[in-house]
């Protein structure tokens, strides 16, 4: 990529009617470069080379610069939209799990090709797993409001490896001809299913509540509070209940399938979500002085 051409502007803004000079450059303009590979999403403009990126909404007059301002440009690398990443991440597990469920050839010994499991919990697990990822895909398309448009391209490889890899690993065992159903049979499966569904509804309720915090197209940030929906009352105790419910869903799925790889997936996911929840909790505390003190990041009172 060629270096961005440095172009100096003297901009004066005139009132359209009176032609008076207004003199404000009131938006941070993206760098003018001739190479279209330097699209806006991968440009980071900052006041300090190692500092945080300035936002689109930042106003020049409110920044700590004198009459001459020096900005630093940083290339964030190839970017990809969050929506694209989510759709790819979630379609993979959906499809991959089904490949194992239908016992497509070259996975299990040939005599099992295209057979179905004799255990009804295996069918139930397939429905739950598929439901979970269909829900995620629909939420990505219709519910979530993303504050950042894009993320670095290399993330998609990392994320897909994680989701697709684990999905394949779990699905292999659950749909295996030698799969062993849960020890406590129907009772265990029933409780597990209730936990799973409860947490799926909970997770969805939180996503809706978070969506409603933010009017369409805006990037305002507000403290989330419990709504009329009982599933959101957990906001009283937790900053990121969407992660809490997600953990609950996967614990339910682990109990339902009694499968160690599922337990590993749940554990790894829990660790990652805890890291994210702690970060989010910290930024809430920093941004809002009246943030409810009773709340924990992800587990009530514990974590």
């Amino acid at each position: 990529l060629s270096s961005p051409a440095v172009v100096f502007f003297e901009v004066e803004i005139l009132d359209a009617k009176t032609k008076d000079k207004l003199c404000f450059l009131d938006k941070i303009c993206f760098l003018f470069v001739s190479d279209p590979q330097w699209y806006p999403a991968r440009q980071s403009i900052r006041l300090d080379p190692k500092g945080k990126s300035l936002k689109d909404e930042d106003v020049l007059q409110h920044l700590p610069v004198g009459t001459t301002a020096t900005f630093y440009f940083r290339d964030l690398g190839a970017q990809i939209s969050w929506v694209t990443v989510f759709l790819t991440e979630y379609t993979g597990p959906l499809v991959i799990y089904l490949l194992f469920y239908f016992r497509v050839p070259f996975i299990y010994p040939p005599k099992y090709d295209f057979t179905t499991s004799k255990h009804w919990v295996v069918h139930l697990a397939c429905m739950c797993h598929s439901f979970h990822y269909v829900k995620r895909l629909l939420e990505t398309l219709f519910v979530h409001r993303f504050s950042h448009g894009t993320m670095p391209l290399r993330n998609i490889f990392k994320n897909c490896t994680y989701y697709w890899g684990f999905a394949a690993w779990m699905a292999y065992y659950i749909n295996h001809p030698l799969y062993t159903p849960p020890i406590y049979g129907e009772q265990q499966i029933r409780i597990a299913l209730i936990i799973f569904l409860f947490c799926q509804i909970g997770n969805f309720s939180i996503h809706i509540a978070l969506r409603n915090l933010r009017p369409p197209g805006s990037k305002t940030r507000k403290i989330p509070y419990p709504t009329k929906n009982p599933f959101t009352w957990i906001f009283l105790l937790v900053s990121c209940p969407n992660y809490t419910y997600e953990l609950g869903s996967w614990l339910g799925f682990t109990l339902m399938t009694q499968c160690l790889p599922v337990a590993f997936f749940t554990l790894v996911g829990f660790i990652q979500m805890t890291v994210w929840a702690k970060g989010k909790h910290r930024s809430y505390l920093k941004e809002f002085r009246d943030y409810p003190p009773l709340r924990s990041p992800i587990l009530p009172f514990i974590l």
Partner: protein
Amino acid sequence: MSAAASGTSKAAHGDVAAKRKKGPGALATAYLVIYNVVMTAGWLVIAVGLVRAYLARGSYHGLYYSIEKPLKFFQTGAVLEILHCAVGIVPSSVVLTGFQVMSRVFLTWAVTHSVREVQSEDSVLLFVTAWTVTEIIRYSFYTFSLLNHLPYLIKWARYTFFIVLYPMGVTGELLTIYAALPYVQKTGLYSVTLPNKYNFSFDYYTFLILIMISYIPLFPQLYFHMIRQRKKVLGHIEDYGKVE
């Protein structure tokens, strides 16, 4: 305005963090010196043990048994180094150090200790020798660095001996894992098969093969990283030569 505010508070925080990161305190330094001295001594014991056993037996065969216990003790002790990074008294990456230490521990316990039949292989002697020389140099390097009296010879040795020792160690390690394969397959060591109530399986034989394959991308990266470090640390000597 929020950009400015966060900018200044970040700068202040950076200063405080910089002051904190200036190096381990006096107590930590004393502890690290003791740790590195003990480790140097330990690996010297292993070196002496190897030499004495060789002189006594008159052959390279089966020298592992004469240093088995100190090898296990001191190599496993290196796990503390991961803790040192995690706590912050050593400025290295926890992940990198963890990876390096655990690979050594894996070879010591999960391969050599676990598969008796390979203990008499010459490949074991190959990597044990490589490790011993490397560690004696490495730990004395750290000891002297902490005391701010690093003899150039030690620095030179640390950044030069690896050129031979690294491939030597890797060869010994790979040959040992390879030698262990048939016994692992025959006995099903550390392997879990279906069906079982946790719906899980693990094939240690396949796992070892994957480990061996992983050397292919990893070894060159580490090797050339050390070569680049060597140029950086020792390079100026050649520059002086050029000036004349």
